[in-house]
């Protein structure tokens, strides 16, 4: 028995060592660094207590990044959820070419974000297809393209993100829809419930666990939005987000490790609180809808 335990520990050791060295240590170390003035090229590092955290909330660049991140989360999550649920509902029906639609909606999710961001950068440019489409429906596109205008750049990136993410969440909703027993709908029909009533009284309550999963995962992903900002605007035109701020401050020309670590931990706390709130909200016994 004792021997079996030793073997088990030995077998687990590679993972434990890797976890401790490449996950646990950086996480704890970056927290400590967040309380220092560490800079890559500086010879000395000093303990500065809460100074970095205080300075962050007086830094217009960080406040603006945080504002953009919240805007990104608040706009994209409800729209992505509604769009993906609607798509799931649509492709759950029996119709010819259903598989093609399912695959079509899902393809963006398995395509590289960098590739998609580059394609959309072209679509959004001056005289691009999106500008042409906007002109056709009577909307005057920004003179220099959607990404070179602070009024439209972040929203353009959000639209791309929704388009890209909706297919993935559609698939998860679809799995949820498939797990709802048909008997519930039959019973509802016998009781005289219409389609809309069935949707709100059966489909949505039964999808609560799936919706919770999607909301939490999508929130975390949206709070960490980075690649699309990096590729499409490099944080210019009022599109910098919290993770981009961390990257720009800590890993590019400035190398302010302490300040960037503090910003990363502020974001960590925000995500943790947001996720906990979503869990509490969706685990209530009363129906949410």
């Amino acid at each position, binding site marked *: 028995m004792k021997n079996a335990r030793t073997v088990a520990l030995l077998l687990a050791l590679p993972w434990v060592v890797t976890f401790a060295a490449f996950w646990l240590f950086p996480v704890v170390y970056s927290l400590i660094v967040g309380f220092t003035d560490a800079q890559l090229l500086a010879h000395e590092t000093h303990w500065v207590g809460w100074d970095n955290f205080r300075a962050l909330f007086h830094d217009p660049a960080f406040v603006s990044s945080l504002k953009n991140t919240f805007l990104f989360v608040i706009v994209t999550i409800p729209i992505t959820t509604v769009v993906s649920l609607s798509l799931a509902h649509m492709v759950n029906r029996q119709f010819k070419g259903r598989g093609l639609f399912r695959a079509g909606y899902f393809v963006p999710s398995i395509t590289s974000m960098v590739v998609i961001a580059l394609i959309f950068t072209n679509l959004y440019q001056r005289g691009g297809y999106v500008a042409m489409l906007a002109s056709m429906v009577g909307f005057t596109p920004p003179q220099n393209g959607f990404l070179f205008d602070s009024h439209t750049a972040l929203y353009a990136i959000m639209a791309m993100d929704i388009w890209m993410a909706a297919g993935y969440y559609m698939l998860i909703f679809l799995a949820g829809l498939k797990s709802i027993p048909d008997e519930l709908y039959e019973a509802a029909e016998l009781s005289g419930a219409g389609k809309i009533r069935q949707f709100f009284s059966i489909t949505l309550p039964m999808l609560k666990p799936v919706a919770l999963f999607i909301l939490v995962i999508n929130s975390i992903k949206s709070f960490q939005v980075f690649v699309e900002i990096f590729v499409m605007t*490099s944080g210019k035109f009022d599109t910098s987000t919290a993770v981009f701020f961390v990257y720009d401050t800590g*890993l590019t020309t400035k190398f302010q490790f302490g300040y960037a670590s503090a910003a990363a931990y502020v974001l960590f706390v925000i995500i943790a609180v947001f996720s906990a709130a979503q869990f509490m909200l969706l685990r209530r016994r009363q129906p949410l809808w």
Partner: protein
Amino acid sequence: MKSKVFIALFFAFIFCFSSASAKTTITWWQFWTDPDIKPVIESMVSDFEKANPDIKVELTDLTWANGHEKIAIAFGSSTGPDIVELGSDWIAEFASNGLLKDVSSEIAPDSSQLQGWGMSTYQGKVYAQPWILGTRVLFGNRDLLNKAGYDPDWVPVKWNELMYAAKKINRLGKNYYGWGSNTAEKHRLYKKFLPFFWSNDAQIFSDDGKYCLIASDKAVYALTFYKQLNDSCGYVDTQRGIEDAFLNGKIGFILSGDWLLKRIEKEHRKINLMATLMPGQKFPGKSFLGGEFLAINAASKNADAAQKFIKYMTSPENQVKFCKANRSANPSSLKAQQDPYFKSNVILQAFIKQIALAKHPPVDPDWVYIEEAIEGAVEDALFGDGLVAQPLFEAKEKIDKIKHTE
């Protein structure tokens, strides 16, 4: 007896081994990876090794996308190379942290032969040797100028002439633009504004360094003019996008560097090109000066060999060889600038003349923050909704905080 022979053989082996390892190996990190220039660099290194059999040079390639990060991380972890190629903006950052060797005494005999020392001098000491410099000149599309009614040899020398000609080209049709205007691209936008700023005799700091003058009347006037160009006839895009549009015959004027000449040649572009000095309120105006420098790691144990190699690489002959292969227009060597390759080409002459009239940003370890403040102000002025002066005053406030100026 047997043991004595063994001991003698052992020492003979140690002696042979130590003489074999007496060859000094110097490591050099550099940015030239283009297939046109890399073989030339390698052949220069090979020639140097032949002439100096006791020195071996190990090359490591960097890219502009992440080269600065790699260098900083290597120096931060004490694993930097013996010689490193640095962009002019980075010298103060590394020098102020004691990471570069002070080469003031070694370079004294060379100092009058090379241009660009100002960019590698920090607090009175020289930390790097100028290699290949870079400036921007005004490029124009001669065909569009002719269409707009200008003589075949006309060039704008004053700002109002530039504005008038750009507007005339802009009126040629829907797909024509007078001026190529950079969008908010990091490390690029400010380089396009500063030539106008300096051409109007504006300064970032006062001569004694006590005052930040970024929001002076001259600075506001320069930014106002730059914004007028942008608003009235600007084609706004990334540097690459502007150059594409210019080479496709859509834009009348752009401010660009010698890399554009390389593109024209390599892509076989047919463009009736005009290149001239930066227009000013008084002609000629001033342009932006930057460049590539070779510096020695302060912790290098092979500093003498490194200095020998740098001297070799920056020699007039090698600079000409490099410029020919890379189509660079700005060798730092004054002797190299006299080579027929530069003398016989009108466009290259514009670069050579402009470099003598170009200014570089202050050599300051906080430049990255100052640059961010200036670039933010230009971005806000060009693409924001407010007044031109306001962002410059905000930039001044930021710079005052960073540098404790007034």
